[in-house]
């Protein structure tokens, strides 16, 4: 059953279509990937689904568990069970990791915080009392954000470039956390242009120039992506007949 569906979803900025008639159907409990070159509209799609400011003036519809959410605020969408992990997570001066991770969860126990930090690849003893501020690298903030999402146990999570800023040794932690989200019943959407991240998914969509140009099993999308979209000129939508 589809947990999230977009129907002819479109958004324009300065008269330019950034999302153009996008139709996707995300299956509950699956790991999906949305791949495509830079500027394809992948992040815009995630921001639009989440309802971020500047991404609200849409055409078409977004259905979450069968109900339209296009008029809901971000927090209302989040309370229905969806969330977003940013490509470059925000910094918060003075806000402790402990408070950030448990900001919206009922279980604020140290045991829980330690557990999710550990699962995101962070040593709780070193991070628990630190702030989510400029003293942390982008990769560290990425893991902290992932820990906060693990604590949340969302129904749907969209992770924008989950490997961005992550060192090779830590990549395993990120992939393990994605598996764990799936095991916990979350539907996961990986926004990526990395084949390694794509390989963590079960199903993928290929985007280019604001359109979904192909979808299917990852083997098919990987082949297509390798052949047609690296590099992509952004000028033309790939020739669907010549690929996969």
């Amino acid at each position: 059953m589809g947990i999230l569906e977009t129907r002819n979803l479109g958004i324009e900025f300065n008269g330019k279509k950034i999302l153009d008639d996008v139709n996707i159907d995300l299956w509950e409990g699956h790991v999906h990937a949305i791949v495509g070159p830079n500027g394809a509209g992948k992040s815009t799609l995630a921001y639009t689904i989440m309802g971020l400011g500047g991404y609200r003036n849409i055409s078409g519809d977004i259905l979450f568990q069968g109900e339209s959410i296009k008029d809901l605020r971000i927090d209302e969408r989040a309370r229905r069970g969806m969330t977003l992990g940013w490509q470059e997570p925000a910094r918060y001066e003075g806000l402790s990791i402990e408070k950030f991770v448990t900001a919206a969860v009922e279980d604020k126990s140290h045991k829980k915080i330690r557990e999710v930090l550990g699962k995101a690849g962070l040593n709780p003893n070193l991070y628990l009392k630190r702030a989510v501020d400029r003293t942390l690298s982008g990769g560290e903030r990425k893991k902290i954000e992932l820990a906060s999402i693990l604590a949340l146990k969302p129904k749907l999570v969209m992770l924008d470039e989950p490997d961005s800023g992550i060192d090779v040794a830590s990549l395993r932690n990120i992939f393990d956390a994605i598996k764990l989200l799936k095991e916990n019943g979350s539907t996961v959407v990986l926004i990526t242009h990395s084949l390694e991240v794509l390989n963590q998914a079960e199903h993928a969509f290929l985007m280019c120039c604001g359109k979904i140009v192909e979808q299917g099993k990852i083997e098919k999308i990987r082949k297509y992506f390798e052949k047609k979209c690296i590099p992509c000129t952004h000028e033309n939508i790939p020739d669907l007949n010549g690929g996969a």
Partner: protein
Amino acid sequence: MDGVEELYRLSKLDKALEDPNVGHIVINLNKILDKRLIPGLEIDARELEDGIDARITVREGTVIEKPVHLCFGVTHEKAVQRIKTEVEIQENAEVLFLAHCIFPNAVDVTHIMDARITVGENAKYTYLEKHIHGEYGGTKVYPKARVELGKNSRFKTEFELLSGRVGLIEIDYETVCREESVMEMTSKVSGRGNDIIRISEVGHLVGEHARGVLTSRVAVRENAKAEVHNKLNATAAYARGHVDCKEIIQDNGIATAIPIVQVSHPKAHITHEASIGSVDTKQLETLMARGLTEDEAVELIIEGLLS
């Protein structure tokens, strides 16, 4: 009732003051309710008609391990309290003063603090001033300090409003830093309603290798106003300083930041950064994407900034 129980309860001092090794003085308006001295700490306090005149000395070479608590309270609804202090931290001494300024019932309470502070050579002095106000916004607070730092001394002060409405706060601190001394002055205040926050922090780096940081963190919401004047002045070789002011505004709040950096020695160096604006959109949307409402998210961001 002399108010001591209310002051202890609000400042959560009960447990700390049971320790015989913790020095303290507790004042309600112009009455000294309680006092404990420990070796090396002298407090000579005199009750005035509208406050207290106190001379506080930490003797040469004395290192006081546990914080000394200074509780300046006014449990009355209307009053004026003047606290005049002369603080001397003598050579090689070390102490942390934790000042609890508590005005829980203030409808019209004015608290005037006038401090002269000298920190001797190689001495370390930390002064943390924590305010607990009532919800009426009827408090006017005028903390003023003039500080002289001796060679290689350390001075750190932090002003923080922990709870309740600001009312009116006018912080006026000025520090002169001699050779190799280090000064850190920090103010953290959050205003709402018709609160008015005025902060003036001035540092003079007059000795070689003197260092200083002025930090202000202010949030104004509803119709509150804030003005932050930070001035750092370096006149000696290798003096180093930084001014850092961040103000968040919401609703109809108005914030002003006036950082002044002045250098009159070619080998001195001072930097400054100031930002005023609404809560960062990405910070806000990240927390909202976890399920916090906009108000809850703003509250958490400001709490972090002022923590």
